[in-house]
């Protein structure tokens, strides 16, 4: 088994890609920016050409607010949003309401990803997950905090990185997560200051001296903690207004703070509620900050395989673009996603699918989404969220402050998504969505809702469903990042025809078309197609994107 390091990309060029704009390459672009592109989205992207396609993708589609659907919500009205509602005044209603809002947040995120299939292709959901992985704040007790944190990520997702860092620093959810909310001059808490430097902005380098991480020192962490003293969260539990953060000068250390030689021995003078911005400014004056976030964007959107050459060319260019644009994110991603390097063969299919990518790359391209009204849709989305959670992508509760190991833990990186337990679950979800009689279901509140792929409807959306061979090629192109080996492609065809000559499928399909309401004709077509999809989704190649 050869190692993964021996094939280098042919091009490190960040010049715009000008070669043939094919379905394969358009699909590659969409697989990295969506959870599971549909045929319509792929065709539109091909038609637009690479330049317009990327510009189009780099538009944030603002999400609608999470809705109240869980019956335990005591304040908000069913079907309306609870995010601007106040906290229950009756103590007994607090826990049920928080629980209801938590479930609403769960279904909200899965619903956003699932309905991506109905919209113009946009990077929104992927880039929001990128930032959630970057900051990794855990869910707050008050659902409104959690919502505001995610709305903040939406708002700045393609905007200014410095502004995002400034806002996230005093975001209530983050302030609870890394203890800024309890950081006072009498006993400073280092938690946020450490991660601000180590993970969020400049990044840690090798330890080159006692407490010296190349780009900053332990003293900078201590100074950072002092700079951030005095910020409090006003919980606002009984008011209509949301919780908010507030500066309390009496808890703020107002002496000057000395930074290390990595920041040119700068002194951050006392500046009350603006002081943290002065500190952030100093961090953003260091080019390392642009380099660090560029490298993370590269891993997330291109490949985890970063050679010294990639670092000194591609990632360096990304950082230069970011600096030239005053830390705006959009121009960096535009350049990257249009570049020759992005479309290098080595980068195609180089990612392993996250659990959400895995689930929605089955559902979205097959146009599978719930249509059961407020309760049913949200219950099923909550189920899908829980499925992804149970195989280690627990949105709202990342495993650690560094996010998911798949994006940082060398050398296995994205292979961390898969192990004996998660591959088993993934295969079970495939079964549920394809050949299982019920599908993925939820029977909470007494009504059974379920969802699975409708193989017949999906077939109808394909170009030549009656031509078995052509149809198999078509779905391989839709679902897999690379051409499938001939023997495996033939095995799929064999499953479709059940070992019979190919014309038998054509015959069967045409008979079904002539008698669409007769289950004697539709059932065999349906079950053959389900078996094909099951086999395809359980192939190792489908785990990549």
């Amino acid at each position, binding site marked *: *088994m*050869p*190692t*993964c390091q021996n*094939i280098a990309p042919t091009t490190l060029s960040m010049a715009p890609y000008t070669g043939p704009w094919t379905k394969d390459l358009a699909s590659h672009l969409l697989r990295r920016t969506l959870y599971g592109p549909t045929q319509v989205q792929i065709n539109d992207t091909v038609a637009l050409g690479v330049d317009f396609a990327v510009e189009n993708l780099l538009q944030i589609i603002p999400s609608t607010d999470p809705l109240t659907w869980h019956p335990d919500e005591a304040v908000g009205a069913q079907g309306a949003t609870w995010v601007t509602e106040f906290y229950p005044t009756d103590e007994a209603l607090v826990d049920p309401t928080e629980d209801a809002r938590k479930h609403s947040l769960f279904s909200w995120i899965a619903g956003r990803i699932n309905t991506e299939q109905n919209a113009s292709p946009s990077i929104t959901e992927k880039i929001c997950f990128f930032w959630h992985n970057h900051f990794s704040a855990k869910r707050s007790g008050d659902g409104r905090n959690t919502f505001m944190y995610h709305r903040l990520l939406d708002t700045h997702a393609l905007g200014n990185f410095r502004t995002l860092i400034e806002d996230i620093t005093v975001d209530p959810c983050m302030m609870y997560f*890394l*203890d800024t909310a*309890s*950081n006072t001059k009498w*006993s*400073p*808490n*280092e*938690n946020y200051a*450490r991660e601000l430097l*180590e993970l969020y902005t400049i990044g840690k380098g*090798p*330890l080159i*001296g*006692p*407490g010296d*991480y190349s780009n900053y020192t332990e003293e900078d*962490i*201590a100074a950072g903690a002092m700079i951030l003293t005095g910020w409090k969260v006003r919980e606002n539990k009984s008011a209509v207004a949301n919780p908010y953060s507030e500066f309390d000068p009496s808890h703020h250390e107002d002496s000057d703070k000395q930074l290390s030689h990595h920041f040119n021995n700068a002194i951050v003078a006392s500046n009350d509620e603006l002081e943290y911005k002065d500190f952030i400014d100093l961090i953003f004056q260091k080019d390392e900050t642009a380099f660090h976030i560029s490298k993370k964007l590269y891993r997330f959107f291109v*490949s*985890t*395989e970063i050679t010294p050459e990639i670092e000194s060319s591609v990632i360096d260019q990304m950082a230069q673009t970011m600096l030239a644009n005053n830390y705006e994110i959009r121009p960096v991603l535009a350049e990257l996603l249009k570049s020759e390097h992005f479309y290098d*063969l*080595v980068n*195609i*299919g*180089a990612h*392993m699918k996250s659990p959400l990518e895995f689930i929605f790359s089955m559902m979205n391209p097959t146009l599978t989404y719930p249509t059961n009204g407020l309760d049913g849709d949200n219950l099923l989305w909550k189920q899908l969220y829980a499925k992804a959670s149970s195989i*280690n992508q627990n949105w709202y509760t990342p*495993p*650690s*402050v*560094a996010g998911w190991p798949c994006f*940082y*833990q*060398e*050398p*296995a990186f994205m*292979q*961390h998504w*898969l*192990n*004996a*337990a998660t*591959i*088993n679950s993934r*295969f079970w979800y495939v079964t549920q969505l394809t050949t299982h009689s019920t599908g993925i279901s939820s029977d909470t509140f007494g009504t059974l809702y379920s969802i699975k792929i409708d193989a017949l409807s999906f077939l109808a959306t394909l170009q030549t469903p009656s031509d078995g061979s052509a149809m198999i090629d078509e779905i391989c192109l839709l679902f897999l990042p690379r051409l499938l*080996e001939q023997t*495996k492609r033939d*095995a799929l065809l064999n499953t479709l025809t059940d070992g019979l000559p190919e014309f038998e499928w054509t015959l069967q399909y045409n008979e079904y078309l002539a008698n669409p309401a007769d289950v004697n004709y539709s059932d065999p077509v349906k079950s053959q197609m389900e078996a094909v999809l099951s086999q395809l989704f*359980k*192939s*190792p190649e489908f*785990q*990549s994107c």
Partner: protein
Amino acid sequence: MDRRKFIKNLSLASATVPFMVDNIMAQALPNNLFNVPVSYEDRVLVMIRMSGGNDGLNMVIPIDQYDNLMIQRPNIIIPENKIIQGTYDLGFHPALNGISEMFNDGKASVMQNVGYQEQNRSHFRSMDIWSTGSTEIYEKRGWLGRYFEQNHPEYPDNYPNNINPDPFAVSMGNSISTTCQGTIANFSTLVSKPSNTYNLEESLTTNDGTLNGCNSSFVTTLIEQTNAYGLRINAAYDAGNSLSQYYYIDNNPQNDFKSKISEQLKYVAQMISGGMQTKLYILDVNGFDTHNEQVDLSDTSTGVHAELLQEISDAVYAFQNDLELLGLDKRVMGMTFSEFGRQIASNGSAGTDHGDAAPLFLFGKCISSSIIGNNPVILDEITNQKGVDMQIDFRDVYASILKDWFRISEDQITTIFENHSINYLTLMDGCYSNGLHDEEPTLIWPNPAGEITNLDFYTPGGDTRVNLVDMRGRIVRNYMDMAVDEGRHKLELNLNGVSKGIYRISIVTMNGNKSVSLAIQ
């Protein structure tokens, strides 16, 4: 791996028990298939990772430093009257009633101030350092991954096979430990529930050397190994047993609370008793990053940190009890570890920030019940960000386990920790593996001693070493290092020139080690 070949090669396949590969309904294998003689080959190490950075100063408490700890961490310090006394100057967190009892029974030891020079206070970098056993940033392989790789360079191709039918290592829970990461593959397989059976569709892929090809090949191997190892894990679990009543699990009527680590250790005991030849089990307990409210302010002996310690201590206690009831206690040892300790002074959020060194526990029948290393010295004035200084390098603990427990040659161990000069510690004790000589007393007089003392001891024969070992585990003097006859031997030990203090006389034999304490006045 070619599974057909595997089944054919596997000696088990010739047994009367059918392996029904297609539906993976392997029946329970008869116990005697696994009744192999107890030897070093069968030894097992259980590692419990306390993720987040454990507050060592509230776990093993230096009682002689209590007044200064009161200055440093008044809001979180454990009330003195609640500390469980371990020795005259060292105590345990009250939640550690299980482990402290094991300590008193000679089944647990404390390694003080374990860490490395120039502590990195990043969770991620520091956990990498602990997992790789290397402070060099280019090292991506785990320390046990390097060990396994020395002997199995072809892995994962053609594994499992008839010589190595079981996983080398098992990660319990939901993610694989980087400790066993090799160059190409991770040597551990994941077990969440050993009763699970697997029948995953297998298919071939070719690897063109790109990341995509590599990932497909990784999935192909994972599926094959999940099926094949799953059979073995499942069979061992079915054949095995678990006897302790102390686990905190669902169906235990004695305990109403369910603990994940308890359940996982129970699975481990049952898999070992069922004949799994896996050498290493790794468990992970999260939640030690206690920046905030690590104690309940109304009673600092309770709270988040106390609950975590209680859960681990109770689970380890039940596990040890289980191993004893199963007669497996001489085959298994365990250790805890965390990426770093926490700062000496607490913060204002009733928590502690990232620090440096911390104590860890070793446990098992064969562990010398001792405290290796000194109590940390706590000053009477707060130094900003001060952590506990490192005294024992964590790689010395790993290396000593490889040497004393797995009997790996020093040459091989040196290759594993190539940028570190190893200082071997004496960790094992009192565990004659033939089981016949536990009743043979080791006599030492006078004790406390002055310049000379006498030793009367038993050896099963062969190479025998007698060492004077200090509380940091260092060999201060050697009195015997030669092949001798089986039976009792007498030695006069010259202590002239040795500083006053508490030491151990350690007797190291081919079949196990034994030690007794000696005070020099």
